[in-house]
């Protein structure tokens, strides 16, 4: 009888610990506003693309003023034009593929 009671107590204790652990791990739906899951879904792609090598243009995001961006484009054109003229002055593969200091491609 004592053994049976001890087993029942241990089972209840195990059940209580499991319930407590489950409660901690499970999302508190009643405490979260309804909009939160939507926000999480909306943010997920942004994190995904931020890691993508196919989107290097994040450097020149909307936070860069258009004037600064145009200056960078102009600087890029000047550097690329000079590089192309250098290639034409002495055509060879090294000059054709030479890198400039343009911030648009570095």
């Amino acid at each position, binding site marked *: 009888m004592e053994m049976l009671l001890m087993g029942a107590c241990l089972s209840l204790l195990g059940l209580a610990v499991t319930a407590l652990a489950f409660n901690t791990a499970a999302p508190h739906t009643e405490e979260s506003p309804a909009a939160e899951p939507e926000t999480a879904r909306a943010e997920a792609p942004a994190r995904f693309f931020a890691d993508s090598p*196919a989107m*290097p243009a994040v450097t020149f995001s909307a936070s860069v003023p*258009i004037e600064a961006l145009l200056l960078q484009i102009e600087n890029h054109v000047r550097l690329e034009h000079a590089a*192309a003229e250098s290639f034409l002055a002495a055509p060879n593969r090294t000059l*054709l593929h030479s890198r400039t200091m343009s911030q648009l*491609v570095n």
Partner: protein
Amino acid sequence: MNQPPDLFEGLSSEECETALALGVRVTVSNGAELFRLGDEADRIYLIARGRLRLTMPMQVRGGEQDVLVEERGPGQTVGWSALIPPYRFTLTATAPLETEVVAFSRETLQHHFLKNPEAGCTVFLNLAAVVGQRLQVFQAMWLRGMEQMVEMRFA
């Protein structure tokens, strides 16, 4: 102009003077446009003083912005679309400072060089060199641009 302009290289000084006399001097004030992309092109220009920015409209953040393609200075030629069908400018030329150009109408040049074919041949070879040089520069720029795009997107 101390040296002959690129278009008249190889002409004798007398021929050069005669050809220059066919043009009309035009002053372009600071910030003004000499011609605009799409305009009818009936004049070719030699820059006597100052500078011209040649630009093309580029789509940037959903808006159109004039982006520098080339800059030309004294002795250089702009506006050769005036001699090549369909006689429409493919760039916009703006003076970033007060600039003086000599404008030659297509009709006047054709008339003059039909009467002076040897000088005409020299001038049109020079024109071919101007056009060819620009083509080669932009071929190289195009290839470099393609390389950069491929590297950025698929590296």
